[in-house]
């Protein structure tokens, strides 16, 4: 009896989630296969012909191959800022977890402030202009590092607290220099939480729309999220191209999801359970 209700419930849940969560994605895929005329109807119908490759080619070459530039820029920003984030956040998390001083309270306050306070946009632009970093990839990378440090530090600190301190001291007794203790002994042990960090932060930075909009203006500086606006105009939108574009920029997160599902969930739920 119980078994049967759970089977019926299972079917109902699968059907409901299919309608709510899967159909919007199927709609994106179907639209990406259509030609411009059919896509203008915006209905949930089978494509009249196979136009996916034409659409992809069209999307990629629009506005002087902007998509290529955008993918290069987004990849550069993501890779470099995540690398910096990992090294800098691990260093802070390490010392913060190991050394108790009267500054720890202040540092934790700053971390929480960084998670809560919305960045002051125009003063940041003003400052970036003063530093000659406004509208440059370097500036964008440093901004992403600054905004995402608090979250990475929290992940690292929690994990480092579980590694016994005796390990550091044993390494010193065996003759390791202080820097080696961190870079050659502790950092490799942090690999699981590093993977979590890489996955969560790279998805977030790759999908970031607001910060590049403010701090990285100009066509040469386009990032992938901004390419979505290429096919929208006040009077006519090329829906087949718009949805092909959405499909293209959904592929990187999809790949990450397929391979690192568990790490993403671990990272995003960190800190939720302890009370």
């Amino acid at each position, binding site marked *: 009896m119980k078994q049967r209700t759970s089977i019926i419930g299972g079917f109902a849940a699968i059907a409901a989630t299919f309608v709510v969560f899967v159909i919007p994605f199927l709609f994106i895929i179907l639209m990406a296969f259509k030609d411009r005329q059919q896509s203008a109807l915006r209905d949930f119908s089978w494509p009249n012909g196979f136009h996916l490759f034409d659409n992809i080619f069209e999307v990629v070459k629009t506005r002087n191959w902007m998509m290529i530039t955008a993918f290069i820029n987004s990849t550069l920003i993501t890779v470099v800022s995540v690398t910096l984030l990992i090294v800098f956040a691990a260093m802070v998390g390490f010392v913060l977890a190991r050394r108790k001083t009267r500054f720890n309270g202040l540092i934790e306050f700053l971390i929480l402030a960084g998670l809560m306070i919305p960045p*002051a946009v125009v003063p940041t632009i003003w400052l970036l202009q003063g*530093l000659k970093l406004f509208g440059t990839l370097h500036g964008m990378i440093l901004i992403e590092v600054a905004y995402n440090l608090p979250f990475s530090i929290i992940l690292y600190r929690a994990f480092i607290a579980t590694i016994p301190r005796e390990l550091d001291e044993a390494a010193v007794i065996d003759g390791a220099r202080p820097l080696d203790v961190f870079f050659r002994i502790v950092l490799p042990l942090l690999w699981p939480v590093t993977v979590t960090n890489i996955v969560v932060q790279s998805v977030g930075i790759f999908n970031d729309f607001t910060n590049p909009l403010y701090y990285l203006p100009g066509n040469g500086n386009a990032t992938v999220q901004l390419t979505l606006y290429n096919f929208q105009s006040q009077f006519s939108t090329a829906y087949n191209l718009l949805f092909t574009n959405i499909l293209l920029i959904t592929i990187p997160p999809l790949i990450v*999801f397929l391979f690192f599902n568990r790490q993403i969930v671990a990272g995003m739920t960190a800190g*939720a359970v302890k009370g």
Partner: protein
Amino acid sequence: MTAAAAPALKAQRRSLYPSWFYAPAAVIYAVLFLAPTFASLYFSLTRWSLSSAVFIGFENFAQFFREPFLIQGLVNTVVYAAISSGLKVVLGMLLALMLTSQIMGRGYLRSVIFFPVLVSTVGVGMTFTVLMHPTNGMINEALSLIGIKGPGWLVDPKLALFSVALVDVWKGVGLATVIYIAGLVAIPKDYYEAARIDGATPLQNFFYVTLPLSRPATATVITLSFIGGLRTFDLIWAMTKGGPGFASDTVASVIYKQYQAGFYGLSTAGNVVLFILIAVLVVPLTMFLNRKQGFE
């Protein structure tokens, strides 16, 4: 340990955990986050053109509470955050209960509910803008098949903000769900055992065991989604640009619009208002949610 060895050990400890490890993170964070935040306190009191700033006192803030469309943006921000975080708590909890039970297809369910969290917000916003079109949109076409005349989701000023909040829930409920799942599986089975011996009904089980013991998860979901809701910009910008009129403007979209219009002082005042709004609402909320409960 002798008295002479102690300082030596202390010095060694210090070099093991050197203060300069803080330096790279501290410099980037201080220059690019803290400095602009402090500067915003001053520039919000000025009429500002990036090259020159004229001090005008609290005029920008006065304008924020005088102009009807700016006040509406303020109200909208709170309404949006409340709707989206409220729905995420309720739906996230229900989905997590479902996914921790012996239901068929758990892996599939968990994946499809969670995947939208990772997708581009702007992409999701544009997709739903098409789906929510009053006459051509798939949602209303589906509703008309079963004889319901669908509303003008994004074009009805009364409904636009709510529709965007619904899409926010669609995209974010997966995160709430996985947080709740982590919270639910951490509840020791003994409690349910004891409740069963006392003859608790499933409903009592939920209200007297599950709900109180998943409080940390609830606190996390509410805090995360409420802060996120107050700060939301990209989804609103992708779907309505604050329209129709100013019906779905939030403080974050006002900040962007004032920046585009060149009113840098007013835009920065918007930043400060948003900051104060978050501090005033979120700090008491987290204190309330994280307070120690009496029943232990």
